[in-house]
């Protein structure tokens, strides 16, 4: 019945291999096979954005991409953005601005914002709102999320500047 086959990709900088059925989504593979449970599933049909992860630099819905499609890809999840003891700049800004309450949508929003600011560290408020409008949050009303992302821009600008040098 099961027709598991191996898929190889990189997760948060480390090589990973999962044996999954063809119908397994990337989000399920990350959560159930690799136990990276920081990525959450809110609707499983690509609307809420909670499962957003970064694949080859782009923010994608982990519930809409099959694990098999990630063959050879570089995947970054919330666990790759900084640990509890060493939060990254974006995570620190979220904590400072109380940009989360229940924390369920947070991983997807961080992944979306990280992908955005990596590409566009100068993104203005409208642009940030537009991009984050693909992620649902029921607790915060979004205002502190936008404020946190705005504040985190400077850290991404620095990274881009350093990379350019």
């Amino acid at each position, binding site marked *: *019945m099961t027709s598991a086959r191996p898929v190889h990709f990189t997760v948060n900088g480390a090589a990973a291999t999962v044996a999954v*059925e063809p*119908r397994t989504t990337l989000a399920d593979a990350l*959560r*159930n096979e690799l*136990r*990276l*449970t*920081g*990525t*959450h*599933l*809110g*609707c*499983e*049909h690509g*609307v*809420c954005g*909670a499962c957003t992860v970064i694949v080859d630099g782009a923010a994608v819905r982990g519930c809409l991409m099959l694990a098999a499609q990630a063959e050879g890809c570089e995947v970054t*999840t*919330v*666990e790759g*953005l*900084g*640990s*509890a*003891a060493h*939060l990254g700049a974006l*995570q620190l800004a*979220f*904590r*400072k601005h*109380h940009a*989360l*309450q*229940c*924390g*369920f*949508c*947070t*991983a997807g929003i*961080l992944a979306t914002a990280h992908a955005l600011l990596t590409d566009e560290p100068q993104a203005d408020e409208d642009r940030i*709102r*537009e991009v*984050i*409008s*693909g*992620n*649902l*949050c*029921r*607790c*915060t*009303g*979004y*205002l*502190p*999320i*936008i404020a946190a992302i705005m504040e985190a821009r400077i850290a991404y600008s620095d990274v881009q500047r350093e990379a350019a040098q």
Partner: protein
Amino acid sequence: MSDVAKLLVGSAVERMEDARFLSGSGNFADDLAVEGMLHAAILRSPIAHARILAIDASAALAMPGIRSVITARDIGDVIPIIPLRLAPLPEFEPFRQPVIARDKLRYVGEPIAVVVADSRALAEDALETIGIEFEALSAVTERGASATPLFDFTEDNVALRYDAGFGNADKAFASADYVRTERFSVQRHTALPMETRGLLAEWNSSAGRLVVTGATKVTFYNRRALAQMLGLRQEDIDLIEIDVGGGFGVRGEFYPEDFLIPFAARKLARPVKWIEDRREHLMAINHSRDVACELSLACRSDGMILGLRGRIFADMGAYIRTNGGVVPAKAAQFLPGPYRIPHVSVSVEAFMTSKTPVGTYRGPGRFEANFFRERLIDMAAMDLGIDVAEFRRKNLITEEELPYPIDGLVPYEGPTSYDTGDYVEVFERALKEIGWTEKRHLQGKLIDGVRHGIGLGCFVESGGAGPKENAAVTLERDGSLTVVVGSSVLGQGLETVLGQIAADTLSLPFDRIRVLHGSTTLLDEGFGTYHSRAVVMGGSAVLDAATRLREKILERASNHLGRPNSELKIVNANVIADNGASVSFAALATDSELQADGTFSNNVRTYSYGTHAAHVTVDPRTGAVKILDYIAVEDVGRAINPAIVHGQAIGAIVQGLGGVFLDHLIYDDQGQLLNASLADYLVPTASDFPVLRAVTLELRPSPSNPLGAKGAGEGGIVAVAAATANAVAAALAPLHVEIHHLPLTPPRLWRLIKDARERRTNAA
């Protein structure tokens, strides 16, 4: 080292929860995985009203990886019934929900069978193969719309009717200069927490013990209910609360699955996990609102309100669940609002339909009642030629009149009074914040193709329900502090707030505190989180426990240092004597921990209050509304963590705006839920409402509890429909449009504008 005492309560400290959520190391229900775990999926009714003739699961049982298909027959001759947790009125008893359908189906989404399989995918595959033979019956989707009785013993599908009130409304109406009656309604919607429900049930057959993880809100109550249904002693069941992705009233009540999943685990003697998918969430979790009202106001010609009459009609759905009649009862109770209305008469009619059952959602009944009353106040003020702000100012209860009794509005509740506050001052503050004086000339003005409107909404709302909450604190051997509490955490930052209270009481650094909550393993008895009670009740219990522990610490330090208590003080986790000798908490607890219990009992409710104001524009060509400015001013008595209170206020405003413009559970006349997906059930996104403000005041502390706190999580939502609908109505007043019904979707507003124009043309 500096004294850390009295610094944290009242300050916007960062939340202790956030590092784990931000790093993806939270622990939510679907993150649970244990050896030998099976997965459940639930077959739900595809039809709103039918008799079940036969269920054939043979094909499912023949599929690989399927361990069991559980139907009503497997559960036994008596199907457990979900109890009424709140407002247990006898009239509701026969309408309670069985945990699984046996003979009859009463709403789309009602559980028919549970499939347990080796994986969730296999379980879902098997659902499709189960054959159900139905005899379809007519669905009932509206009040009084059908002759079809939904239960054998009712003729009119009405579960409960009552009248309540105070004063003599008939007399007041007879003597009034002015009377107006209007009908309003708020559409059915729901809270939509981001995490769907989920449970892991583990049965230990040799010990005869059951552990259910993923519980929340009222774990101790739910344990009692589950024990009774399973025929177990409650001591043999533990409900464990882990991280919870939002509650807002709907999550954590006792649902059918709270029986079915533990039942499956015991039957199969294997751990069973169930995770609700979003589609079933929208048809299974409590719906809410869905209240209509016929409201009458009697006034003197100078605008003084003499009396109010309100008839509440509530669609309860197919069954009466744990919340009983809270939604309509609170809608009736809060109809008078923060106004001096000497004569009030209300009635409630709770009727049954073929829809998902209704329960509480943040601000239950208040969101609706404030919308109804504040709309009618604007209409009355307009009729009488009185400025809408002046009309409210004239009728708001003044501080001198507090405490102000509102007895007799809820038949199953005792006397209660609005407690403390300065309703007028908070109202004036909201006017100032929105710029009422400067902007009122904009009312109805057409500027650049859009019409401007500014609306007001005043509210008072209860919180802090009793009877009791328990806590315990332990100074561990390493000098850290463990706080346990019977309150539940649903993502609202309660760990931080309780940590702040304990830190201040014990002069202990915040990062030395761990807060455990909700689980039935922690305390003998707990009461949970609802009705904005966690800080008022749980916080006060923690304060009590920490105060007692402080005494024990001083006593032990007194022995240790050989100095009397009177010469000791606690500074930053050290006890220091007048003579300079000192001992650390860690040293005091090295040999044995120090522990103290705390409790707080209280049956007096807190009454938070405030005013919302909205400035909107409406495009009359499309019906699109834009919020230019929004201000919510609320007095919460005392804000333990102002950033958390502010965050909840902003979040609640946005949820409320969703209820005004977007959220809508749409049924057709066959009782089919038409939009059970997030692609179709709309909630606010980041680009919808970018300009919002909330002002949290601490003008008048609550006298009910030592913290002085009042409920703070719901004031942000309760007046949103009131203020926003009044703003939209003000914008469209020149077009002779009135607003009575939510949601204010562009098509509805466009239609109202068009109809008003046609009416005027025809009349002319």
